[in-house]
């Protein structure tokens, strides 16, 4: 996209495409392995015979996972948390990144120090829990949303991008009588779609992948987020034998989820979040030609 002109296919392009494709294949193969397991029979999976293509192909495991009430309820929780959470997070991020991107803003440095401080320092498990408890937020959906609803890292990324926008465009808007808020809404945001798309993706993925909030604030199984459900499923298998070689809880050990069911759960709980990126990708590749906005 960088150069719109037609090039002859050069040696550089061939080598470049080859190396990039190789990298793509290397990353793709292990992912295929997990997918192949999800569609294979239990026997080949346990015997370790499945590599990149399903053996004893079947879709029953996927169907079984999709019908599990625990999966469905966790899926709904995570979907809600991701959508609502990302919306709140984007609002909190953009509104604060814009003023802070203005070097002339009085008190800017003070605010930035505060944000960097809270980025690096975390009060820890106990005070956070007690806060949510005293606000009556534990065992509510908000306990899954607020912990991820603002990230200083993402805010700095947005602020950084705002700073790189040419001041002339904004000035032009102000000459036309726009207030700061109008400028943000009408000029700055449309020019910043690539970075806003990125940060939206970061937040959405952050919400979808978060499981610690569930561990810390939730005991009601109907509010368990999907990642925690998945994580538990994977870890169950690892933690049945303690360091003395004894099996702690036989009845639970007997009912462990099989390997192909786990692979199927990984697949169905990852696919939805994978769809976010393609839908945002158009903002990446097109690029906003700042020149056209420039007066």
């Amino acid at each position, binding site marked *: 996209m960088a*150069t719109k002109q037609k090039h002859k296919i050069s040696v550089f392009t061939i080598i470049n495409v080859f190396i990039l494709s190789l990298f793509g294949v*290397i990353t793709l193969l292990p992912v295929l392995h997990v997918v192949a397991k999800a569609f294979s029979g239990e026997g080949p999976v346990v015997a370790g015979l499945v590599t990149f293509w399903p053996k004893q192909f079947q879709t029953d495991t996927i169907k079984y996972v999709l019908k599990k009430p625990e999966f469905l309820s966790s899926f709904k929780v995570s979907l809600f948390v991701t959508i609502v959470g990302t919306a709140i997070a984007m609002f909190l991020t953009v509104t604060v990144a814009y003023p802070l991107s203005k070097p002339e803003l009085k008190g800017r440095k003070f605010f930035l120090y505060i944000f960097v401080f809270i980025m690096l320092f975390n*009060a820890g498990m106990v005070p956070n829990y007690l806060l949510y408890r005293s606000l009556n937020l534990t065992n509510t959906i908000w306990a899954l949303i607020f912990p991820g609803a603002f990230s200083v890292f993402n805010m700095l990324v947005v602020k950084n991008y705002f700073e790189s926008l040419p001041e002339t465009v904004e000035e032009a808007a102000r000459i036309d009588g726009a207030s700061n808020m109008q400028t943000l809404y009408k000029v700055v945001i449309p020019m910043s779609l690539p970075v806003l798309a990125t940060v939206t993706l970061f937040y959405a993925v952050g919400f979808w992948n978060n499981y610690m909030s569930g561990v810390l604030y939730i005991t009601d199984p109907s509010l368990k987020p999907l990642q925690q459900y998945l994580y538990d499923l994977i870890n169950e298998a690892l933690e049945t034998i303690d360091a003395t070689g004894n099996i702690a809880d036989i009845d639970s050990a007997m009912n462990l989820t099989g390997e192909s069911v786990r692979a199927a759960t990984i697949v169905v709980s990852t696919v939805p979040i994978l769809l976010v990126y393609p839908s945002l990708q158009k903002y990446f*590749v097109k690029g906003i030609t700042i020149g056209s906005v420039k007066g």
Partner: protein
Amino acid sequence: MGKTIYGSDIKQIEQGVVSKKSSPFMRYFKKNYDMYLLLIPTLVFIIIFNIIPMYGITLAFKDYNMFAAETPWKSISASEWVGFKHFKNVFGRSDFKNALANTLIISAYKILFLFPLPIIFAIFLNEVNSIKFQKGLQLIVYLPHFLSWAVVAGIFVALLSSTGVVNMMLAKLGFEKVKFMMDNSVFRKVLVFSEGWKEIGWSSIIYFAAIAGLDQECYEAAHIDGANRFQQIWYITIPGLMPTIILMLILRVGSIMDAGFSQIFAMYNPTVYESADIIGTYVYRMGLGKMDFSMGTAVGLFNSLIGLILVLSSNKLAKKATGKSIW
């Protein structure tokens, strides 16, 4: 109302061109109060959810007993001060030095090798003319980010075991087998490589976005001037990415104490503790923070302090070297 533009507004204030009716501050505020309004929601949010709980950091210097007062919140102040007892308890252990050294070494390796790669990847992918290829490859390489380390570790263990594909190939080519997962001289490389495999695609997204935001006219102008691809990369793309690169580097350096707990926890085993046991895994394995919230807070505080020092100093360094910084 609002006819004056932002930039010249400031200049007016600086030059002391102020109407007699209001003080410079009031004037400034009147023009820019909506900027502060924008700050309010987030500030309220972080005061409630980030700053108020910071009070709990005092736990690091106390023997916290949750039941010391009628509520656990009040118990924080009711608990006894013990000074640096918890710090001494953790840092005084014989194995701690090893864990600290490993944390720093592994983190440094990861920064050294894995910080530049996503940038290089983004730049070179950008050089491919086919949008379809760009889009498709972006989608593929970010997939592994979504697999948890427990799953990824399983795959790497299978690949790198003595009967795994890699060793089979080494054997066929006439090399000796390598105990990737059990050799202290190799294991760190496995950690760096596997993290690279998992995260390069994901980390490059932010650079894709930055490149997408670069002014297209520059490229066209450069092309007309006869600049070749490498010159375009060198004179346009990289300088354009610089603010992002610097920001990311400062933040990455600041998180040096996080050498990748979940990765190492999923991948290591007793035979490589010597080279791979980091603070997080050590504390976890020894059950140090277990039921001892004060000690957990102490370790966290230590990590945060190191992070703060590194962010502040690298920010200063960046400002000196390039004139750019977080603030």
